[in-house]
């Protein structure tokens, strides 16, 4: 069974290699090959899952060492995989949702001449993401970590002829690199502290290290997670990443890659458990981001950007839960999985709407689409109910648990603060998602012709697109309940991530009631603002907060002024310094010697008689010197 683990990664990797090197010959069949290999990986995952279920809870971890990667004195990095319940969960999510999105892309990218390459990149992404969650040490995880970053870069910038897409891709990679510095330093700290960076040895010998070191490692891991999972302060790339094709947004920037930060924190749970300060930082980052993303999501008119804000916010929930320690790890992952279903479904729905609306993304130009796209409407609607946490659907089970756990943080003021934030976030989520729902599917038709003047003819998407949406909608409805009943999910993960029952500061039924009330209130406000009144086609100026939220709360502007402008000035002045000062010293020395020899050459005037004078003079001096020496 161990040998199958490598196959999980190898199948999509093979696909990527074949599709990217294959050239135009594969243009006709490439997308099928890519989809089949993604499905093959899913099948292997399912086989391993079945095998795992057949074993006792404590014996489920499989490891497989392929070879020694970097054998250097005192430094052992192996290419080794570890498949336990946590990675299994991810494997199924990644390959499952991944396969569905491959399928969806066949239809969505049908008219793109570079479809083969698109599938090559998608396969590359799957391979890297699987490597990330299967790695048995942090360095190999780092390879997957940057690998998904590369795939994300290639896919965001897939339509490279658009400068905005190329810029967004570059931005995503650069912001992620800042996070990668954190991961790099964390690994180096682990190496100097423990002499290794393999999961087993590091996580089992945490007790020996000082709390200061562990806090430093934890904070660096958090920085890494912030980059990859678009958490404040490194969140700015996610909104721009929506420049990529919609299946990419669904798979990478909603369901899987952006949750890698949560995986990293949960995987490193032992380190965080021993470093409460780092945990507090994680919780704060999660709480701030969940509000930040939610507020941004309220103001966006671009359907994908509104969903991106929502993704940020939902990952904020997960990070918050992961920061709570053993009371939250399992719920973070549970929300991650359910979110994977409904958010991927929502994005696919958005893609389906765009597909039918001449690639229009502005929700102010939608309206009344429910009659024209019934399947999209129903699946999107179920995703919508799931994400706002409507009782009984997936999001309800997972988000409610996180809110409970947040109220249980530290049994005091902190519990109230973070519980309150999580509750508030649930209300805002209901507001902005209801807004999206109403503006897209209800109300008047506000359709506008596209740039070439063609009026949109909304129509239902082809089967290859609707089937994945239906499957995901099933997950959105039932997954949460299935996981929550009898604490199934928690028990499944418990051997890997420790688990403690949370004890909230107020009773659980009260929290559940409050959650439902808050979400109904949020939805009602949205209905009052957008459902009862007609939605203007051109965005009104809006309040101060709306305008700020439209501009991502001015974070990009701050980055622009501080980093971009500042950096430009710095490099420009350094170029100047290099040219004038460093090179100036060199050229100055050269010029100095040149000037000196210019003076000296005047002595060479060409007159034989003046040379004779210097000869006689020199001879006289020599004779005088000799006589003088003799006299002394």
């Amino acid at each position, binding site marked *: 069974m161990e040998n199958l683990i490598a196959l999980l990664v190898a199948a999509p990797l093979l696909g990527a290699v074949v599709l990217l090197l294959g050239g135009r010959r594969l243009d006709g069949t490439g997308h099928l090959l890519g989809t089949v290999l993604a499905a093959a990986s899913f099948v292997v995952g399912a086989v391993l899952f079945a095998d795992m279920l057949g074993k006792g809870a404590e014996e489920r971890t499989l490891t497989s060492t392929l070879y020694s990667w970097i054998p250097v004195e005192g430094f052992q990095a192996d290419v080794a995989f570890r498949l336990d319940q946590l990675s299994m969960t991810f494997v199924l999510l990644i390959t499952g949702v991944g396969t569905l999105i491959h399928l969806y892309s066949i239809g969505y990218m049908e008219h793109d001449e570079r479809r083969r390459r698109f599938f090559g990149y998608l396969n590359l992404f799957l391979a890297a993401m699987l490597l990330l969650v299967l790695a048995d040490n942090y360095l190999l995880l780092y390879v997957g970590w940057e690998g998904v970053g590369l795939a994300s870069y290639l896919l965001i910038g897939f339509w490279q002829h658009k400068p905005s897409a190329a810029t967004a891709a570059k931005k995503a990679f650069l912001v992620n690199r800042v996070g990668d510095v954190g991961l790099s330093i964390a690994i180096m700290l682990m190496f100097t502290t423990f002499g290794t960076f393999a999961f087993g040895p590091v996580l089992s010998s945490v007790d020996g290290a000082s709390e200061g070191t562990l806090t430093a490692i934890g904070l660096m891991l958090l920085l890494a997670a912030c980059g990859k999972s678009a958490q404040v302060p490194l969140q700015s790339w996610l909104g721009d990443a929506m420049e990529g094709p919609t299946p990419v947004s669904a798979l990478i920037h909603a369901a899987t890659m952006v949750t890698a930060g949560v995986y990293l924190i949960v995987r490193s749970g032992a380190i965080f458990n021993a470093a409460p300060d780092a945990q507090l930082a994680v919780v704060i980052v999660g709480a701030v981001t969940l509000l930040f993303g939610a507020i941004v999501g309220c103001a966006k008119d671009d359907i994908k950007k509104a969903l991106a804000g929502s993704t940020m916010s939902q990952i904020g929930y997960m990070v918050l839960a992961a920061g709570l320690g053993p009371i939250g790890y399992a719920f973070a992952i549970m929300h991650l999985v359910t979110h994977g279903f409904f958010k991927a479904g929502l994005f696919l729905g958005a893609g389906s709407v765009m597909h039918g609306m001449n690639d229009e993304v502005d929700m102010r130009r939608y309206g009344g689409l429910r009659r024209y796209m019934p399947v999209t409407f129903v699946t999107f609607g179920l995703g919508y109910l799931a994400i706002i946490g409507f009782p009984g659907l997936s999001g309800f089970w997972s988000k409610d648990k996180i809110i409970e756990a947040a109220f249980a943080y530290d049994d005091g003021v902190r519990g109230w603060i973070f519980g309150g934030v999580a509750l508030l976030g649930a209300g805002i989520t209901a507001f902005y998602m209801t807004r999206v729902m109403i503006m897209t599917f209800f109300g008047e038709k506000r359709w506008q012709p596209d740039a070439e003047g063609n009026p949109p003819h909304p129509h239902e998407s082809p089967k290859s697109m609707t089937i994945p949406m239906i499957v995901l909608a099933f997950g959105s409805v039932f997954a949460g309940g299935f996981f929550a009943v009898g604490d199934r999910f928690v028990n499944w993960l418990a051997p890997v991530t420790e688990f403690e029952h949370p004890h909230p500061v107020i009773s659980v039924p009260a929290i559940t009631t409050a959650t439902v009330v808050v979400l109904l209130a949020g939805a009602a406000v949205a209905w009052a603002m957008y459902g009862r009144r007609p939605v203007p086609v051109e965005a009104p100026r809006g309040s101060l907060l709306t305008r700020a939220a439209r501009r991502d709360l001015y974070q990009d502007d701050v980055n622009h002024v501080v980093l971009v402008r500042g950096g430009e000035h710095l490099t420009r002045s350094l170029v100047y310094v290099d040219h004038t000062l460093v090179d100036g010293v060199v050229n100055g020395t050269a010029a100095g010697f040149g000037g000196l020899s210019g003076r000296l050459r005047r002595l060479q*005037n060409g007159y034989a008689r003046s040379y004779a004078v210097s000869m006689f003079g020199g001879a006289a001096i020599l004779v005088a010197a000799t006589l003088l020496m003799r006299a002394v």
Partner: protein
Amino acid sequence: MNPVNYLYLAALLFTIGATGVLIRRNAIVVFMCIELMLNACNLALVAFSRMHGNLDGQIIAFFTMVVAAAEVVVGLAIIVSLFRSRHSASVDDASLMKL
């Protein structure tokens, strides 16, 4: 006769030759002055030879004469070709060897 007097004469001749090299412009005259200096040296060498009672000085004087003869051959040839090309034997006119 006191051999030191020969040295005085040699010094006088050398000085006349050196002065001539420095102040005269005509290449032939400069050339003759150089010969004068060489011969002043020869006189001094022979005088030393006499003073010390060995032949070293005379031998060197012979060398000097041979070198002077060779020099005359090359030097006069240069002066002649110089005069042919620029119709002047002034050493100051031939001042092209400079940077």
